[in-house]
């Protein structure tokens, strides 16, 4: 949990950013300087859709120290309504209630905490609608 990395990645983690390629028209995640489909650097920042559906999901009970405050938590691959897929925690829910295809909405939560004195890392997660 070093400050430079958290600072460098904050916007991407807060806003869920990808790119939209001006040449081939494709959108992709995460943010990058070059389009992974056509290789051009003629790309612009793109904010991912805020709602989507659960494609795959599981629960996580064993995790690293910085994320253990939240465990056990649910985790899944979400297909957003713009077609982009991301991995994310699905929170405020019971694992047993999750279903494939369930609609979820992006929310802003704590991803990790560096003990009691270190930094707090924030970012996107999902909750059921």
């Amino acid at each position, binding site marked *: 949990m070093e400050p430079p990395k958290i600072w460098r990645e904050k*916007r991407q983690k*807060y*806003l869920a950013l990808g790119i939209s390629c001006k040449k081939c028209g494709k959108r992709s995640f995460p943010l990058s300087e070059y389009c992974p489909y056509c290789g051009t650097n003629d790309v612009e920042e793109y904010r991912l859709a805020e709602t989507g559906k659960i494609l795959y999901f599981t629960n996580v009970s064993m995790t690293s120290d910085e994320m253990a*405050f*939240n465990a056990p938590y649910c985790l899944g691959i979400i297909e957003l309504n713009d077609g982009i897929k991301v991995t994310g925690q699905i929170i405020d829910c019971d694992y047993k209630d999750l279903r494939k295809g369930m609609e979820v909405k992006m929310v802003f*939560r704590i991803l990790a905490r560096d003990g009691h004195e270190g930094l707090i890392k*924030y970012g996107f997660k999902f909750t059921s609608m």
Partner: protein
Amino acid sequence: MNKVGIVSYGSYIPQYRISVEEIAHIWGEDATELKNQLQVPKKSVLGLDEDVVTMAVESARNAVNLWDGEPKLIGAIYVGSESHPYAVKPTATIVSEALPTGKEIMAADLEFACKAGTAGMQMCFGLVKSDMINYGLAIGSDDSQAKPSDPLEYTAGAGSAAILIGSEGIIAELEGTYSVTSDTPDFWRREGATYPSHGQRFTGKPAYFQHSIDATKGIMNQLQTNPSDYDYVVFHQPNTKFPLSVAKMLGFTKEQVELSLVCRHIGNTYSASSMLGLNRILEKASSGERILMTSYGSGAGSDSFSFVVTDKIEKLQSYPFDIEYYIKRTKDIDYGLYTRYKGLLK
């Protein structure tokens, strides 16, 4: 003079609830008596991955999503709270990046017990009215702190309210604002202390009641209005009884204050308390209706506001994530889970 007022509003309440019965059971107290006294059957509790920052962001995003403007137009963010996660490192900076506003923005975290959020509103009204900014965002967000077994524990909830202030697209125009401040040690928390201390019954008469009454009378005197001129009145809600009592003392009816009593469902959300009450009214009010709001912050002081609802409000009243949504979205927890969620286990 420029018109100034509220242009949008957003709320956030975490989903977890703990009942008075659960807490009373732990301390051997009489739940029925406490419920009659406080009229707060349940209070809201933060999830493990939530804090004042995440709640502030959610309420701010709700305010911005409801509005048809761009967050880049916002020129100031003030976040009032008693429970900022960092003692040094402003919540407002994180809210700004998460909206995202532009970088050229005024920002600060405020503390004035339960009225830091309304202090932020006044700052925004002043900055907009003086043309220093186009829009300002005032947020009250609190993960209310209470020492286990303290009477506060039954009501100290969690929530956030964001009020976007501007001069274009006003949904509730500001008629006036009036404040009173005095050095009154009714409730405090020293640097480094985990929980606030308070003066028991002393928090009532010379503190909550005196300041709320003085500020409310002050604004009505300033604007030459009477309680009957208002359709709705909002007070700070440490419990449900206090705002009902102060309303009665001032000559307001139960009907005028009832809609604002979000406290009945979620308890005392400290800096967010009166602002959530105002948001609830904005969700239901009609064009031409008048709202009087008086916050209270221990220490102590009160800020009063008088608003007239405009015809632009209707467009901002059909939003899926309103207070009603958050009030209905609940999940009860027992005291065991509560100790984990509140971080009481060291």
